[in-house]
């Protein structure tokens, strides 16, 4: 992403963001409430339209991107509309959608991936329960399992630790460690890192819609403890195609 700008209701939320995520990185997007963290990751995926600049997913603009199975998006919270119950398994299995073709039935590979994802987040024994009956932390685990089921290369997680109990946070950290070990790329938005801290390879700190730090993860976490200096990162020659990239228009 280069020169990325996003405005909501004509109010600029992000200004001049340059961000390139390289394969295998574990990037934490940090910042105070309202600094535009969530908007940034959603704009990276093309879920929020840019008012300036451009964003590329594996070298392709989101509107023309066709390999969505390479990306697993974990939204901030489970939105269960209307109250039609859904079982945990149904929600997790729906993570396979980008890998399924319309006229083919759900296959064995789908069922196996769903089972693995349920196992990974420790909800396998509750797969038949409705997601509506779960606590916030457990619902968050369902969302992560949904992304896991799709077996993507890059995970984009919006506040996976917000409002999540300590047990779920540790479980998330273990799950992430497994993904990192297998060379997956992770971009996550966080208010505080908690048990995720040792996994992070790079921190991007936002303040008022601008990147105010990009580099090594800060040791002490918390808005006041963050280094205020600008840290310009020399871009590595782009041999592998970057999973996420924002490019300037002008």
């Amino acid at each position, binding site marked *: 992403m280069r020169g990325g700008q996003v405005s909501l209701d004509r109010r600029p939320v992000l200004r001049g963001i340059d961000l390139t995520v390289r394969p295998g990185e574990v990037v934490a997007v940090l910042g105070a409430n309202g600094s535009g963290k969530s908007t940034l990751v959603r704009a990276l995926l093309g879920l929020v339209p840019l008012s300036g600049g451009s964003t590329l997913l594996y070298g392709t603009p989101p509107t023309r991107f066709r390999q969505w199975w390479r990306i697993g998006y974990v939204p901030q919270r489970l939105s269960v*509309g*209307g109250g*039609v119950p859904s079982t945990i398994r149904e*929600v997790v299995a729906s993570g396979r959608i980008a890998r*399924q073709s319309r006229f083919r039935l759900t296959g064995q590979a789908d069922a196996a991936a769903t089972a693995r994802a349920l196992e990974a987040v420790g909800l396998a024994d509750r797969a038949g329960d409705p997601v509506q*009956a779960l606590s916030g932390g457990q619902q968050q685990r369902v969302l992560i399992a949904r992304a896991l089921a799709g077996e993507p290369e890059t995970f984009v997680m919006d506040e996976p630790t917000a409002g999540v109990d300590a047990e779920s946070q540790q479980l998330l950290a273990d799950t992430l460690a497994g993904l990192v070990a297998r060379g997956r790329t992770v971009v996550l938005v966080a208010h505080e890192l908690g048990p995720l801290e040792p996994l992070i390879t790079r921190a991007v700190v936002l303040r008022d819609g601008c990147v105010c730090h990009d580099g090594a993860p800060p040791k002490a976490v918390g808005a006041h403890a963050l280094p205020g200096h600008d840290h310009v990162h020399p871009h590595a020659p782009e041999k592998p195609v970057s999973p996420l990239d924002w490019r300037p228009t002008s």
Partner: protein
Amino acid sequence: MIDLLRYDFMQRALIAALLVGLAAPAIGTFIVQRRLALLGDGIGHVALTGVALGFLTGTAPVLTAVVVSVLGAVAIELVRERGRTGGDVALALLFYGGIAGGVLLISLAPGGSNATLMSYLFGSISSVTVQDVWVIALLAAAVLGVVTVFGRELFVLCQDEEVAKASGLPVRFLSLLIAITAALTVVIAMRVVGLLLVSALMVVPVATGQQLTRGFRSTMLLAMLCGMVATVGGLTSSFYVEVPPGALIVLFALGGFVLALGLGRFVRRSRPQESN
């Protein structure tokens, strides 16, 4: 029940009722999930304009109703997509426009009056013709086909639109697909329960189903079962007690809901581990 089937009109009515009872809750499950329970009502009101247009132009009212309600459904969907707020207001505008348009157009039609619209507003299943049955069967097949083929994608869409987008699903196409399928459902249900009660068949069986189930698929299947029991039960009873079948069908559906409400409470109490 057997002597019922000796009447041709009753055979046709039963087939129509069965198909509607099956199709309406199927698409209704997705609509309820999307918090668009009133979508069916909105389309129903717009369809009235379509019916009147049929009388005015001398074409089959069912055909014009299909065209106008599909256009109305697309309009509702586009307004919903654009405006971040006011989806309910957009629906309300269509409600009024649809009724006013229908009343205006029918008064312009030769020999037409508000009384002509009554059978469409409240249904007239006993006057269903063979041709009507074919149209209903075709449309019901289309609705069930959409649910079967696109069910998985619609499920993701109805859960979370952003996730659907980030999974590469054609979000706008699927949203329109739901709206158009709902419009087709409204038209087939129009003859059975009437435009004013159409939405009841899309919503009430789903509300009934979810009292007793834990999953999306099971809710849908149970809702379809409830829908069929209500339409067939209401229709047969109306044959014996001489009341309008549309009203009886909806009251049957509501009765089922009340029953499920009590039963659901009982079932949940016997599975206490789930209520955390």
